[in-house]
């Protein structure tokens, strides 16, 4: 239905003030409020995830001691911690932050729409997500504890209730994930429809900001890859609850099927979170180097290529699973191939910076730090994508370091970059620059200090998901590295206090934000900070692509997308 009809049908009162507290802040259909709800949930879950990380790292550095603030943990509890850390960070931090928060906030504003195509579906999606989060957190407190089969939940450990004490916890894990999947399916449909169909006049697809392109590509990828896992999760739940035998060899089932189904989704999932992270970086780098983004169309084609390729690389997670060895070569080939579009994206980002007039405000620092860190992480993926080296490295800390070196930059570096960048637009206040820079430097160096040692520990053979690797004499010489990583992790987690303080203090004491503090071109900067309920007083008329920076002969070094054309000096829009 049309937006007009949707707004009329929901009885929207026009300015928001007429809505009561519950309709305005809790059961809101405004995409900006929903984005903030996703943001709040994700940041809270990030604290829970950080807590699990703290406990894990402490146990690895000083095994069998009482962890301050946690207590003494058993090997089973360690498995639960590892499981919950991964599940929370991927599904309840990265997804809601990058897609839920930034997707919801930025897409309608950037395409010049008044709201998402389906505002009420949007509200349903965030409440479904919230329920999923509640179920997952509740599983921490049920008898038997939270799921302990890893975020990958391999069968038959996860399929046979007799194999673990976390019987109810594992069931709840499946339900929580199902709710999360449903939520992002709804959100994905909303994003795709809005970007394809609800754009302002003049906003052709080739004038859409890259963040929008990357968000909808990620949404489509999620939509296409999650289906088999939904079927697989139903089968897993039935195995546990009804005694079917889909994944249980004793009943004729095949545990390998779960691995295939999981990773068929699991691998695209990491690109579902990586693409929006890249999109955020691609919005910030041009603004803070006052230069157009390099190779705009190539970047879009790369996103589409990476999406398509990501659907046929999944078995690189399974080289040592006992799968048919003949599958190893094709999947190695596709995995090495997928590094090509990502390399082009990285090169395009560097080329965007090249020769630019860079300033290093906090958003730029985080974007640059994220780019540099992701580069290292991506390169280490080559060793894992090639079956020969992966056979040695699989299941070691090398893998852990690799995926943290890719996921952490796209989730947290890009996420923080986006938060510092769009905070003025979201909340109408500027964040404190000095605290922001402190946050960045501590986070950047803290992060490297945690995970570089883990590469070394992993190459030496230390297996992951093991309660006490130092118990093996083979790894005792590496223990100083584990301790170093833990100390760094504690510093890294503590450093986030700078962000938390900045976030809340700026809400109250931050300088009032102008419309366009960063002198950027995209449409959200043409309206008030924060935008009114309907985003724009009138539909913007889009006249150019978003990256018209430092155009020769122009009056200023930026040119908003909806600004009237200047005579004879506007470089032809793409």
């Amino acid at each position, binding site marked *: 239905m049309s937006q007009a009809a949707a707004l009329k049908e929901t009885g929207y009162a026009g300015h928001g003030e007429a809505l009561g507290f519950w309709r305005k802040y809790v059961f809101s259909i405004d995409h900006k409020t929903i984005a903030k709800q996703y943001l709040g949930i994700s940041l809270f879950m990030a604290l829970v995830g950080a807590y699990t990380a703290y406990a894990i790292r402490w146990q690895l550095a000083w095994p069998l001691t009482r962890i301050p603030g946690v207590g003494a943990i058993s090997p089973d509890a360690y498995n639960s911690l590892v499981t919950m850390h991964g599940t929370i960070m991927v599904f309840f931090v990265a997804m809601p932050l990058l897609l839920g928060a930034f997707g919801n906030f930025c897409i309608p504003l950037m395409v010049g729409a008044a709201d998402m195509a389906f505002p009420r579906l949007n509200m349903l999606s965030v409440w479904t997500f919230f329920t999923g989060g509640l179920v997952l957190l509740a599983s921490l407190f049920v008898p038997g504890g939270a799921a302990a089969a890893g975020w990958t939940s391999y069968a038959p450990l996860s399929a046979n209730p007799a194999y673990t004490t976390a019987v109810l916890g594992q069931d709840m894990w499946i339900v929580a994930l199902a709710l999360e999947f449903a939520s992002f399916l709804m959100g994905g449909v909303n994003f795709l429809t809005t970007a394809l169909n609800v754009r302002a006049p003049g906003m052709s697809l080739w004038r859409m900001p890259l963040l929008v392109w990357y968000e909808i590509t990620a949404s489509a990828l999620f*939509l296409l890859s999650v289906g088999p896992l939904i079927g697989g999760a139903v089968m897993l739940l039935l195995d546990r609850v009804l005694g*079917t035998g889909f994944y249980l060899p004793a009943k004729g089932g095949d545990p390998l099927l779960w691995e295939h189904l999981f990773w068929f989704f699991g691998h695209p999932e990491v690109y579902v979170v990586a693409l929006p992270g890249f999109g955020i970086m691609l919005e910030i780098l041009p603004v803070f180097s006052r230069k157009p983004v390099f190779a705009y169309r190539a970047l879009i084609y790369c996103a589409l290529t990476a999406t398509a390729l990501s659907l046929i690389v999944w078995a690189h997670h399974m080289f040592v699973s006992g799968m048919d060895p003949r599958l190893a070569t094709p999947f190695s080939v596709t995995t090495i191939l997928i590094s090509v579009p990502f390399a082009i994206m990285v090169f395009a980002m560097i080329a965007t910076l090249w020769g630019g007039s860079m300033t290093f405000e906090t958003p730029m620092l985080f974007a640059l730090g994220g780019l540099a860190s992701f580069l290292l992480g991506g390169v280490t993926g080559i060793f894992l994508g090639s079956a020969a080296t992966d056979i040695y490295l699989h299941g070691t800390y090398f893998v852990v370091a690799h995926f943290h070196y890719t996921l952490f930059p796209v989730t947290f570096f890009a996420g923080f970059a986006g938060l510092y960048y769009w905070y003025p637009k979201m909340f109408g206040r500027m964040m404190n620059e000095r605290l922001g820079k402190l946050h960045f430097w501590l986070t950047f160096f803290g992060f490297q200090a945690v995970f570089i040692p883990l590469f070394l520990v992993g190459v030496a053979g230390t297996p992951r998901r093991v309660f006490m690797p130092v118990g093996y004499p083979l790894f005792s010489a590496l223990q100083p590295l584990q301790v170093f990583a833990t100390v760094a992790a504690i510093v890294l987690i503590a450093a986030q206090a700078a962000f938390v303080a900045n976030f809340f203090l700026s809400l109250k004491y931050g300088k009032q934000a102008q419309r366009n503090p960063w002198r950027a071109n995209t449409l959200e900067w043409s309206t008030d900070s924060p935008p009114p309920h309907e985003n724009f007083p009138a539909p913007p008329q889009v006249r150019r692509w978003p990256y018209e920076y430092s155009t020769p002969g122009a009056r200023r070094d930026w040119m908003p997308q909806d600004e009237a054309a200047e005579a004879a000096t506007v470089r032809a829009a793409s």
Partner: protein
Amino acid sequence: MEAAPAHQVEAALAIDDSIQAIPVGRIAIWWFLASEIMVFGGLIACFVLFRLAHGGWDAEAAHVHWQIGAFNTLVLLTSSYTMAMACTAAKADDAARLRICLLLTVLLGLTFLGVKAHEYSLEAAKGLTPWSGLFWAFYYTLTGLHSVHVLAGIVVNFFLWIAARRSSLWPMIQRRIEYAGLYWHFVDVVWIFLFPLVYLS
């Protein structure tokens, strides 16, 4: 609650149909169906693969009631026809015809579910439960998930049928019946493949 001034609402909205004149509801439903294709496709693929692995499951498959399955296929195909007629009636502004066709669709859907439930009871009585073997696990999962989708479709169609009695809601019905129709036809298409897969193989 007063509505925003119409000109302000219209002015604030930005709808550009230039790339393709497809209503937002239709695009959204097709994206949703794409994800559903992956759900059922994934499960069907698993069933086919397991069936090949276990030598075809001919002995187990001999116990399915293909006549009941065939009858249910007839019911569902006919319900697709009545649903298509309902959509056509909506376009022709014929509320009475739409209500009849929609009601028939709902009744046919309920018939499908009733027959399926009866079929399940027959099988359960013979000890053919989801936990009695992998063929039956797949049978119940595939047809069960499909039946859940049929039920959801019946609920949606029923609410549209109720709403169609109020002329003030007629424009909304005209828009939404198409989307309900797309969903219902999809559920029928899934069954078109499930039927030979489960009953005639």
